[in-house]
């Protein structure tokens, strides 16, 4: 945080999805970290917290909903990190489960550059 950049942790098992978010967010002035599933995300956050999260639902070992539930049970400040859930799953059950687990927003993929940048700016306060 020496350069004052806001840190976003992307939690998604798909390499190209993470790369896509990373490129957009880096161009928008964010610092980006990646985790490939919910357990790895918890591990990373315990080492260095993020300012915002982008979380997929279906991931190996720990899905996004279980991850958010576990995150919200952590101590502050981890428990309060805002999270955007992005998923291909558009069923009402998934949306409700994500909300109940502590998602701040739910967005069905695909997600375009402007929309993604807007969510993150909202979470972090616009960078610069």
């Amino acid at each position, binding site marked *: 945080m020496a350069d004052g950049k806001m840190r976003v942790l992307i939690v998604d*098992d*798909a*390499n*190209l*999805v993470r*790369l*896509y978010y990373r*490129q957009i967010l880096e161009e928008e002035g964010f610092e980006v970290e990646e985790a490939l599933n919910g357990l790895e995300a918890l591990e990373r956050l315990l080492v260095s917290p993020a300012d915002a999260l982008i979380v997929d*639902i*279906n*991931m*190996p*070992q*720990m*899905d*996004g*909903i*279980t991850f958010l539930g576990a995150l919200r049970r952590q101590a502050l400040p981890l428990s309060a990190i805002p999270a955007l859930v992005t998923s*291909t*799953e558009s*069923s009402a*059950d*998934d949306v409700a*489960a994500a909300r109940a687990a502590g998602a701040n927003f739910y967005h069905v*993929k*695909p*997600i*375009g*550059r402007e929309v993604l940048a807007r969510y993150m700016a909202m979470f972090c306060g616009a960078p610069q």
Partner: protein
Amino acid sequence: MPLIRSKCDNAAAGVLREEPASLASASPDERWAAARAACDPACISSLGDALALELDARVRQAIFTALARIATPESAGVILPYMRVDDASTRTGALDALRAMPEAARPHLPGLLVDPDADVRILACDLVRDAGGADGPRWLCAMIETEPQANVCAAAVEVLGEIADAAAGPCLSRCAERFPDDPFLRFAIKVVADRVRAETPAPRG
């Protein structure tokens, strides 16, 4: 001397009971033990019955492991319905178990890739990564030629990013043309197409 050495096995160790446990026991610890002991193909149907009723995540995990360990197309078949349940952690458990038994999962893949449920097709793409073997690139290339859902194509392209060779180039281009408005798919296809093109050996002579 503070460092001690126990005289025999189990001393100071809290000896574990060795009773045959039941998958239908009221105790999660006993169900866990029973699932762990059930690693023979004869146990497939009782594991399947137990899976349908199990609410404890840890025991469910042990049942999935037992089925993965049996590793037959039948034991994989018991898991398939759990790819379409509402509970995300159960779906994850099912997928992880299928990933652990690629040979056993392989016969199911062609059917899963044309499943009527798009969410199942998406999950099936990821299974192709390890379970598809030499057929994997061909299956996914065929899929993205006709698959109507952009998110399913995106899941296939993700896996092709790891397993595809130059032969995938043309069908990647055609897929991109079918979904000109999907920003992620456009990006993903470009990354993969650039890679396979760069890896294509230049014609000799």
